[in-house]
């Protein structure tokens, strides 16, 4: 489904990604781990076209992603969440989720201004879909509340709901359980497993919470200083000496 080859990204003198390659199969859940600054989020930013790659290629369902403009990515079924939340704070939770459905609606300025029947039908459909997602993620009670001011754990769910509203096939989660307490992490892991099943999703998740990664991912890729240092089933990667060294340093 996704094939990253020899991806290199440089910022000035720093090489954030250095010839990284990996493939993700349909339906897989892949964990992307590594110490801070390893290039995990940079890889996400390349996948969503926030950053340009200096060399290498990214193919998604046979298409060259690097040739597309950033706003076209969502329409292909790639959705993401952000490490430090990227919500629209002054909009209601429902409207945040509705923005997620943006690629699946067509209304332009003129038909919206005139409130044409086409728009009314589309708007009703979008609202039904959004309400279903809100319901599924237990957000119906806060649907009319502005995003600003809600608890952090709830906001994380709102971000997930917004991503799901875009009907993704590939979901990119950037540290989804960062900042959540133990109970919330367990709950999120359960929800994610169920949703993956229900929506037939392929997931790539960047996470530092090893318990979460080991418990939910089929496969783990470990980056360090922009290079891939290990890849394989979670328990193997966990024992890999290179990974242990990257996290803990070499024994003195």
């Amino acid at each position, binding site marked *: 489904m996704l094939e990253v080859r020899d991806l290199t990204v440089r910022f000035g003198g720093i090489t954030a990604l250095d010839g990284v390659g990996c493939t993700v199969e349909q339906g897989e859940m892949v964990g992307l781990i590594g110490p801070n600054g390893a290039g995990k989020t940079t890889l996400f930013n390349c996948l969503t076209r*926030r950053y340009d790659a200096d060399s290498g290629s990214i193919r998604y369902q046979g298409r060259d992603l690097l040739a597309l403009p950033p706003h076209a990515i969502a329409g292909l079924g790639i959705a993401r969440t952000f490490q430090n939340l*990227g919500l629209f704070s*002054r*909009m209601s939770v429902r409207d945040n989720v509705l923005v*997620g459905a*943006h690629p699946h609606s067509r209304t332009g300025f003129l038909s*919206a*201004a005139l*409130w044409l029947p086409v728009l009314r039908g*589309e708007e009703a459909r979008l609202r039904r879909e959004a309400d279903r997602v809100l319901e599924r993620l237990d957000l119906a009670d806060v649907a009319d509340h502005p995003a600003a001011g809600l608890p952090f754990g709830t906001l994380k769910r709102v971000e997930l709901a917004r991503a799901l509203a875009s009907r993704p096939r590939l979901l990119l989660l950037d540290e989804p359980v960062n900042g959540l307490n133990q109970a919330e992490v367990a709950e999120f892991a359960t929800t994610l497993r169920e949703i993956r099943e229900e929506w037939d999703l392929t997931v790539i998740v960047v996470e530092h919470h090893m318990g979460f990664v080991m418990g939910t991912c089929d496969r783990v890729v470990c980056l360090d200083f922009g290079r891939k240092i290990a890849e394989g089933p979670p328990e193997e990667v966990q024992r890999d000496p290179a990974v242990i060294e990257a996290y803990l340093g070499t024994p003195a």
Partner: protein
Amino acid sequence: MSEAIETREKSTAPASGPRPARSWLRFLEPRGHWVWIALAIALILPFQLVPFRVFQLTMVLVYAVALLGLNLLVGHGGQISLGHGAFFAVGAYTAAIMMDRWDTPYPWTLPVAAAVTFVLGLALGVPAARLHGLYLALVTLAIAIFLVPLLKRFEDVTGGSMGLTLSKPQPPSWTGLAEDQWLYFLALAVAVAAFALVAGLLRSRVGRALHALRDNEIAAEVMGVRLAFYKTLAFAWSALLAGAAGCVYTWVIGFVSPDSFTVNLSITLLAGIVVGGLGSQAGPVLGGLFVMFVPSFAQDINQGAPGVIFGLLIIVVMYVAPTGLAGLAGRAVRSFDRTLRKE
């Protein structure tokens, strides 16, 4: 901000489950009944006031339409324009030139003025979409500065510094209205139509896309919102509304000259929408009232320095009501509603 409070208010009402669709009136929400009350008052006023007051209210409506456009761009789209007076002027001159040169019946000048300013807004919106914050402010300011000498330069079309004097639209005899009342109702019709159009825009995915790029540009783009497209079109629609307001201005005043459309107008408009309430539905009307009445009020207080008083009043309003007059009014309306409900 006032929207934020608005939505919180709604959630305390029985909002469980999908709310029943309430026909086409829904586009006037939130707080539909206040819209109707305001409209009813607006329909009665011209029969109760002396012609000069009616004229003043007509100008409030003209400014409200321009501010509605500016609100779309600044309040909802999170962009800035220090040059909206220029679009207002282009709308005014388009109408004036059509009426002066070709004796075009005045109703035809409105769609043409709207179309001209839309295209102009589109042309300027393309580069504007690439600029941010202060850079955008500077470029739009340049448009406003550039315009006055331009109008003076093409004397044979624009009448140069002398401007153009036109005959005002006359009321059809079947209405039985006086001229000032007729002009008032023309302005009211344009204002109501403009408000309905913008309300539709804001309730749709277009409005959500604008709000999204205002709140978080990066996330909006990741969600598939084409930033350049929405910024450019917001600019163009905003210009169109300013142009329509300018056109009605020409009808009402019957005279255009370059000195009516200096940079001052652009800055007054921006001040008007900030004071009225950015991103709120009532902001343009309250801003229009402010722009119309406060300068003359300032003049009454101190003949010598109306500018100083006007400036001080802006500071006072922003201090008392940081979310603009709309935020202040919203709070008053809600407490009034609550007392009504309790009884």
